[in-house]
């Protein structure tokens, strides 16, 4: 089975994010970049499927700048078969543009299963998965917490507020992964050492970056502490006054 895993390199969840040049992108100095955490579930699921089936191929592709090679290297440490950087310096917010670039690249090969995170934690668009499936004209199962393969038959679960949906389709398909699907592994040192020597393949691509643009970034203002107005019924008039005059919510 041929599995394609799509990943994105994003700032570390713990990084302090500050607006950079012209307040339109983030300042990258001192920021650590990691594989998007939801994409790690996709990587882990691909590795588990390959192990369970005792064969197959895993290819990992990302769209991004030169630094995204580090994310591919981290993926390579886990023991995937092939990695590819679709290189662009355009930071596009446009999900469709990314999906188009990916679909052109992916269409050249045939994959049974395309796995990716449900969303990237930096822009949180949640668009690329379904759009890519649409462009490839294959089904898409979104936000999946359990995945079972039986031959070409796919059964997946999606957890909602009120219960679990069970979805079925057949391969090829796009599956976007949600926390809870699995617990991503830590690479073996042999894997790490092999990945250090790996040559990362790259192709330059053009991403149209003008259909949706960032006009400005702002840091949310620091939270001020809560205020205790008083106690019991006596405090109610003061509370209402403040909610009306100061917070302007009533």
């Amino acid at each position, binding site marked *: 089975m041929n599995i394609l895993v799509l990943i994105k390199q994003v700032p570390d969840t713990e990084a*302090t994010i500050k607006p950079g040049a012209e307040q339109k992108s983030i300042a990258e100095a001192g920021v650590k970049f990691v594989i998007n955490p939801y994409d790690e579930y996709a990587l882990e699921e691909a590795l588990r499927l390959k192990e369970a089936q005792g064969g197959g191929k895993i290819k990992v592709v990302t769209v991004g700048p030169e630094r995204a090679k580090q994310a591919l290297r981290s993926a390579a440490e886990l023991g995937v078969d092939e990695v590819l950087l679709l290189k662009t310096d355009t930071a596009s917010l446009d999900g469709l543009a990314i999906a188009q670039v990916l679909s052109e690249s992916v269409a050249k090969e045939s994959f049974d299963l395309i796995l990716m995170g449900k969303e990237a934690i930096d822009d949180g668009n949640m668009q690329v998965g379904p759009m890519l499936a649409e462009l490839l004209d294959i089904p898409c199962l979104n936000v999946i917490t359990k995945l079972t393969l039986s031959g070409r038959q796919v059964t997946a679960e999606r957890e909602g507020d009120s219960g679990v949906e069970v979805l079925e389709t057949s391969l090829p398909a796009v599956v976007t992964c949600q926390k809870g699907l699995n617990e991503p592994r830590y690479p073996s040192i042999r894997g790490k050492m092999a990945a250090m020597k790996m040559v990362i393949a790259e192709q330059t691509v053009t991403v149209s970056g003008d259909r949706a643009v960032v006009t400005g970034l702002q840091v949310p203002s620091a939270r001020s502490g809560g205020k205790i107005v008083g106690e019991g019924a006596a405090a109610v008039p003061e509370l209402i006054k403040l909610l009306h005059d100061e917070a302007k919510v009533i």
Partner: protein
Amino acid sequence: MLGWTGRIVLVLAILIALGYFMHEVWLRVRIIRRGKHDVKRWDRPAERLGYMIGRVGAQICAIKDRPFTGVMHAFVFWGFIFFTVATLNHVGGAFKSGFSLFGKNTFNDLWFLGVDVVAALTLIAVIALAVRRYIFKPAGITQPQPISRSPHSAIVLALIFGLMLTYLLNQGAEMILKGASFAAYMPVSKATAGLVAGMAPATLHAWNLFFWWSHILMVLGFLMFIPGSKHLHLLSGPVNIFFRSREPIGTLQPIDFEKTEQFGVSTLPHYQWKNISDFFACIDCGRCQDVCPAYATGKPLSPKVVMMSQRKHALHEARALVSGGEPSESIMNTWLTPDEIWACTTCGACMEACPVMNEHIPTLIDLRRNKAMMESDFPQELNAAFRGLETNANPWNMGHDSRTAWTDGLNVPIMSQAGEVEYLWYVGCAGSFDDRAKAVSRAVAQILNQAGVSYAILGLEEKCCGDPARRAGNEYLFSMMAMENVQVLQQYKFRKILTTCPHGYHMIKNEYKQFGGQFEVVHHTELIAELIKSGKLKVNQNGLDAVTFHDSCYLGRYNEIYQAPRDILQQLSGRAPVEMGRHHNKSFCCGAGGGRMFMEESLGTRINHSRTEEAAATGAKMVGTACPFCLSMLDDGIKETGITEKLQVRDIAQLVVEHLQS
């Protein structure tokens, strides 16, 4: 003197016994030789020999932790030494009547006075040891079952008892048969002579021959029994002490990643030879088990089982090992379980207690290394810690750029802008990210500023010292971090490194050497004690009520810093701290070492609760610590056991700040 038939039987018996003994010992030597070469074991041979003779000769090894059984053991040991000559004379007597190795002189007489007395003392000791083992049944030597259920002890006690008894009866009979010329310096044999005095000469002669033969046959039987039993320690024990590690307890050795494909230990030949030698030196005495925090709190780890189980494994695989082949199975799962190797807090109490100076911690970490690096199989929680170390250079995975957030509002100089300083203060991850330890960092900064100490911190150039990675078996990650840290440290000018965390202290002082970093390191309690002594820091004396002190393993057992924190407490409270039941080198771990800080403690009871209760039992209202992990564990222990009214915990630096003279 024996007749020709007797002599031939004797010589054959000796050849068989000696041959079997040598064969069995050589088998074990060949198994040990399957381990890897280790150059560190042969340096300073004269010093090693002297240390071995002193420690074994004075029986410090046995007496140190168990005075009563130790003294009993010393009787048996000295009995063994004195009897070497007696046994040679005994055998020589078969060929030449009245044979004496030393000849007839005062030295010989004195020696045999010694033999006579130790024979009696050994008899007493054997009875005492048997009573202890079979009536009082101390857990250390009788648990856990079934591995400690060995008939070996009964056989050995019976043999030694028989040896002494037949010797004394034989001597007594000889005394009567040959006239009592040597009675003066053999008081005990003289007494046994009284027992057989009434016999007819022919009967006495027959009995004498019987005592003579039973004695020598028991000697030879014992010889054949030794190699296959834990009593091999009378050879392997002293050898093991000779080849002891000369580094601080628990110090780990690096892996050369260029030269090997196997990281850590999966099968026996992956060990260094000394690790395997340890397995054969173990006596099942359980001193290690008695002090192990994991064992004490119901976890499946016992340090002695780690040794004994692998000895069984080695013997099980003996055929393959001595013929140069590979063992048929790996050590883990059949012989040891993951829960055992991950339960270790690397506190070092086992190594401190071991009479033959076995090195349990490096062995356990070798097994962890294989698990962590070759198999990526370790407690789930470590995944986050390893990733945190990789991405944010701290095991909590907090944003690296907030490493210096604790300095807000304080005047803390940064190394890159400070030029040359006296102390480069290595704050450590806990001191930078953990709220409780951040308060300690602020206290230390205040002390340094007030005393006018020249210092600076690395700021964002500081990264984790790597201790959690190394102790959790991720040597690869650790070695990258250590190399990088040594490089950063070497580019600055300073006299000493100051650490607020004993783990950083140990790593930088003792383990960074392996990566080319030679640094003089001081712990903050040492510096503070010195500042108070020299008058640079003035504290209110008697400002503090009764206080107890919890020794951190890495400060105490690992680096033998016991007095500095106590001196400070003495200054603050006007009296020495109230000691807990276990203190100094016998201190009981808080439960957070060995990477355990970052793992769940789901088996047995909690180590920190046990220690907290011990601190509360002193009656002191305050327990002082000098380690951020201990602080955290004890604070949690106090809250979780609901004794916040009774007991509080502070780092020594916080107590000092609370009692500073302004």
